[in-house]
């Protein structure tokens, strides 16, 4: 199963490149969907069914919002003209990206191989999670008991962004 990871992530990378480089915004957003849905499968392979469920629904919803926004506005990407400034930007972007990947190559040589995580906090969750909280789903035990404070923050983020969306899309800003 795990051997399917690399092609899947490869697919996600292809999706990312297409999403950024296509000239039609709608195609770009649908290619973004490739990444999101491939990520769902990756989560399933990585034994994270909770994440897969949340990811697939939220991906759908995000795509609905994005597609609705694009259909109501325009599908055309901005026309890129080849100017000196743009070339500089392009080179700068590529240098950034290359430096980033190079740095990570060096960094990841130092951490233990894929598939053997460092368990320090998690050890307690795995051994005592059920007796400590009573929930057999350990992810639920973590997000709503051990780290419930984070979840309060997360729900607040959602509340904040809804308040923000309603604020930004209101009729009139100034009295």
């Amino acid at each position, binding site marked *: 199963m795990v051997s399917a990871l690399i092609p899947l992530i490869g697919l996600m990378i292809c999706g990312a490149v297409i999403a950024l480089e296509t000239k039609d915004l709608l195609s770009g957003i649908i290619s973004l969907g490739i990444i999101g849905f491939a990520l769902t499968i990756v989560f399933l392979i990585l034994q994270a069914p909770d994440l897969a469920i949340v990811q697939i629904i939220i991906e759908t919803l995000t795509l609905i919002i994005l597609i609705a926004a694009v259909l109501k506005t325009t599908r055309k990407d901005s026309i890129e003209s080849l100017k000196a400034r743009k070339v500089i930007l392009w080179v700068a972007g590529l240098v950034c990206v290359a430096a980033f990947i190079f740095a990570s190559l060096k960094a990841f040589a*130092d951490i233990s191989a894929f598939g053997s995580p460092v368990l320090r906090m998690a050890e307690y969750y795995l051994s005592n999670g059920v007796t400590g909280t009573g929930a057999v789903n350990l992810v639920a035990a973590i997000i709503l008991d051990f780290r419930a404070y984070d979840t309060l923050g997360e729900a607040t983020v959602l509340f904040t962004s809804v308040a923000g969306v309603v604020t930004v899309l209101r009729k009139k800003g100034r009295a």
Partner: protein
Amino acid sequence: MNVLPLFIVIPLGAAFLIPFLVKMWRRIPDLTGTLATLSLTVLAFCLTDKINTARVYYVGGWEPVKGIPIGISMVADGLSVLMLIIINFIALMVSIYSIEYMKQYTDKAKYYILFLLMIAGLNGVVLSGDLFNMFVFLEISAIASYSLVAFGIGAEELEASFKYQVLGGTASAFILFAIAIVYRITGTLNMADVSKVISTTGLNSAVLFSALLFFAGFSLKAALVPFHAWLPDAHPSAPAPISAMLSGVVIKVLGVYALIRVFFNVYGIGTFNSILSMMLIFGLISMVFGGILAVGQKDLKRMFAYSSISQIGYIIFALGLGTKLGYFAAVFHLINHAAFKSLLFLDSGAIVYRTGTRDLEKMGGLAQVMPVTSWTSLVGSLSISGIPPFAGFWSKLLIIIAAVQAKHFIWAFVAILVSIITLVYFMKFYKMAFLGKLNESFAKIKEVPVFMSLPLIILALLGIIMGILLLPALKELIIQPAADVIYSGVNYVQTVLGG
């Protein structure tokens, strides 16, 4: 009873209740906002008792098992308490000021909801003892401030806020990536525990990579040059009280505080020793660039925004000196800048409220019609540019002395030069806005209403008192404990986890 959770619960509870209560009486948002920030300020001052010991609060009662923290902890040590006092006091001032000022905008209830959520986020960041929890609260305050910047939904505000969001979102992605790598290396998220594990592994390239990601992320949030592009747009476009919050508090909490916490207390300057020189260089660049760019500005609030970049540069520079005096000066300058930059932004709001323009060239002679605004602006300007006997003078002097002590003579000289530049542009601001001939169209304007002038007067008085009388008391009470936290570095582990 331990009060730490109340710093989160009060603003959140108030924000969640406003939608229900606003139907009953339209004044409810003003009242809730002010009462909530008032009670938070009182609570923050209560914490100064026993400030030298770190209070640790294990949320949900999940105390460490065999020395390994398993839940989320809230930690209030000297630095956190200092930041709490700044956040909640400035928030109280801003909240009173908003009662009148925000009448220009529609939907005040939403404004107070977002404002309280921002306060909750900032308090959460400062109190958190857990890296991921800090990230979550950082996102709350960031998202609230994105929406608050665009509260007027004019074209300019929307663009500024979009830019802010893109750079802020990038910063958040960097920070989350760094947290993921830290978790991969250490297997824990509690800051003290991370510090403990990292001190045993030492600096390998994975740790270095995560440190660099953290540095990039927090520098974006703190708007250090060259990561400053969003600040000169976002801070001026926001409503004046929010500009005061952003410049006075938000960049300090999300940027400077987080940098201090992660690099001094978690990684430790012993592990990652090039951090000090990086801070020196970035601080110096921000100081000089911010100062030079501020001089040329015609837009009042934009000038203040560049000035914020310059002053944050001073703080980071002083931290980068790596001496005890440097830390003390940095903390002191942080308080001063919070008080005076919010004072100045509130003043700019008062001017805009009455004249309707931010263009300095269209102003002039306002001292005749707006005496309170004029005097408080003078206090703020003189203090920030470092004129004795105001508090700003002492903090800048300390920074320069610290630089000289650390044998950075050239850089101390640069700091003096920038201080002169600061004086130049603040005098330019004062002269263009308040002195000279009064523009005829402004002849009939009056001083701002009492709810707006009250915070101005309080902040200005605070500046005078802080400089002359309170300094020794203030030093013992809050500044020294905060500086000690920075100086003690990775001893944070012992203060939090014990042993």
